[in-house]
């Protein structure tokens, strides 16, 4: 187990460097941050040169990257072009997004796994077909469409929930955006769980468990679920990335001042430090989630652990 953890951690290092460098290159090398600062006005050449110097933009790219990463490890994400430290923006944005993502994640797990288990155990029956049709529809309708439709019908027409989220971001207000954000992922979780359950329910060891005279509850709860949920958990980890990407759309629809909102503003204003900083953090979260899932996988499946 120890060796497995160390190997995974070592594998993460090049991936982390590669991913962050890729983002850094995208924003700094391909764009022109200085020109972006001035918008449509042509910058005064002298001022531009001065800014370039102060931002180390004349150094080679790898050196800029190293300086940037060194800053990050000190907690310094640079300063947005309007003078606010990026870390300050993060401090206000992240709690909101974390809340939203957690709400969505909880909905995804509970509803997705629940539907998947029910459908997988009654494969081919009415419930199964119902779940399949439902998930197909949810996957097919893009998040921004569901978002606007739900906001309009549930928020405005029926007034069951607030159509927009207030500045304080109460958990209750996040229910509707959470459902929207969870939607597509939830459908994938349900489908994956269904397949996994349907596959495992016919396995020899489930037959053994039944032959042992275990109550149905135990056969399903201990033997079937334990095995069937392993691939689902792997999916849930990689899905954190989809949720964070999706948060940009959801936050925009419901006007939540979170990471997606800040990132979107940063992109609109071509604010390179904001964009790189936020995306770097998101990517780190994503990589960390993948790592945790890998380790969890080893805990859940002894065949991996001792391999």
């Amino acid at each position, binding site marked *: 187990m120890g060796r497995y953890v160390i190997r995974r951690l070592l594998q993460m290092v090049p*991936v982390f460097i590669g991913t962050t460098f890729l983002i850094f290159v995208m924003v700094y090398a391909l*764009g022109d941050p200085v020109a972006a600062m001035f918008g449509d006005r042509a910058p005064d050449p002298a001022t531009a040169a001065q800014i370039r110097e102060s931002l180390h933009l004349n150094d080679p790219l790898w050196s800029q990257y190293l300086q940037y990463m060194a800053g990050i490890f000190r907690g310094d994400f640079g300063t947005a072009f309007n003078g606010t430290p990026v870390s300050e923006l993060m401090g206000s944005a992240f709690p909101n997004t974390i809340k939203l993502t957690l709400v969505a994640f909880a909905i995804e797990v509970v509803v997705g796994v629940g539907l998947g288990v029910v459908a997988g155990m009654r494969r081919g029956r009415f419930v199964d077909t119902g779940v399949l049709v439902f998930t197909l529809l949810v*996957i097919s309708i*893009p998040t921004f469409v569901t978002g606007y439709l739900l906001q309009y019908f549930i928020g405005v027409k029926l007034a069951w929930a607030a159509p927009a989220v207030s500045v304080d971001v109460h958990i209750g207000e996040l229910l509707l955006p959470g459902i929207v954000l969870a939607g597509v992922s939830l459908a994938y979780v349900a489908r994956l769980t269904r397949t996994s359950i349907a596959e495992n329910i016919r396995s020899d060891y489930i037959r053994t468990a039944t032959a042992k005279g275990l109550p149905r509850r135990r056969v399903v709860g201990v033997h079937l679920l334990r095995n069937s949920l392993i691939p689902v958990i792997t999916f849930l980890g990689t899905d954190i990335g989809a949720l964070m990407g999706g948060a940009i759309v959801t936050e925009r629809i419901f006007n939540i001042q979170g990471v997606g909102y800040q990132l979107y503003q940063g*992109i609109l204003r071509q604010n390179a430090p904001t964009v790189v900083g936020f*995306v770097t953090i998101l990517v780190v979260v994503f990589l960390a989630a993948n790592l945790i899932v890998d380790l969890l996988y080893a805990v859940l499946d002894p065949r991996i652990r001792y391999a």
Partner: protein
Amino acid sequence: MPEMTEPVATDRTEGAAAPGGNGPEPQAAPRSLWGDAWRDLRRNPIFYISAVLILFLVVLSIWPSLLTGTSPYACDLGRSQQGPAPGHPFGFNTQGCDVYARTVYGARASVTVGICTTVLAAVIGCLFGGLAGFFGGWWDSLLSRIGDIFFGIPILLGGIVFLSVIKGGSIFTVVLLMAVLGWPQIARIARSAVISAKQQDYVQAARALGASTPRMLLRHIAPNALAPVIVVATIALGTYISLEATLSFLGVGLKPPTVSWGIDISSAATQIRNAPHMLLYPAGALSVTVLAFIMLGDAVRDALDPKLR
């Protein structure tokens, strides 16, 4: 105990391929995976529904004028946000353009982006994943880590950042970007499919008989590793279409004058209270398109994955 050979037939497989997993195995003529899959597909109504829909969408994106004589650019601001009128069954959008014509013409961008991205991502993915799986060792480590780097950037997030920086907006840039961020998903599948195909007894036998490496890959491994790749790619096609629409909706994907459902939905979304028709038609068309590809992927998977048959 004396050494015994089995009298007639091996009994090891009893119940394995049988109904419910524990019945006797009915005899059947030997069939290939692909022949079997094709037989299965032809019995599946979902396959026909999705195939017909996709065919329709492809024809539509090649000759949109088959369905409408109105140009999507012929706009009359005087008719802004008006409802359906004779000759304009879906009404008009904010700019006074014909929503029906724009919905019809919008298919082209979605279908093109979806198919091109999938083909490109599948080619890169099969190349990287296939080589990593086939050669293993250092090749595997190197190629897999490269894949991990791109996999580490969620497509939507990377797409927003990258497209906003290069101020893209053409179908080409959107396709290129989504394929560059999307291939690791297919590479992972291809890699594990190749590894498991490589371990099959008959492939080992071919190796023992001295088959050359290219022959092994093309003749023995590729046909068997292809099935999971095709399944994942078909489903991915649907999600790529959805992603393009999302990027266009956020204003960083396709840009006018390209007609895209994402752009139209974006401009309609703020007006949902006044003129819901502007949102519903392109959103419906987009959803049906994504649905068609995902249903096709489902049907293909059910046919190719004998485990769940």
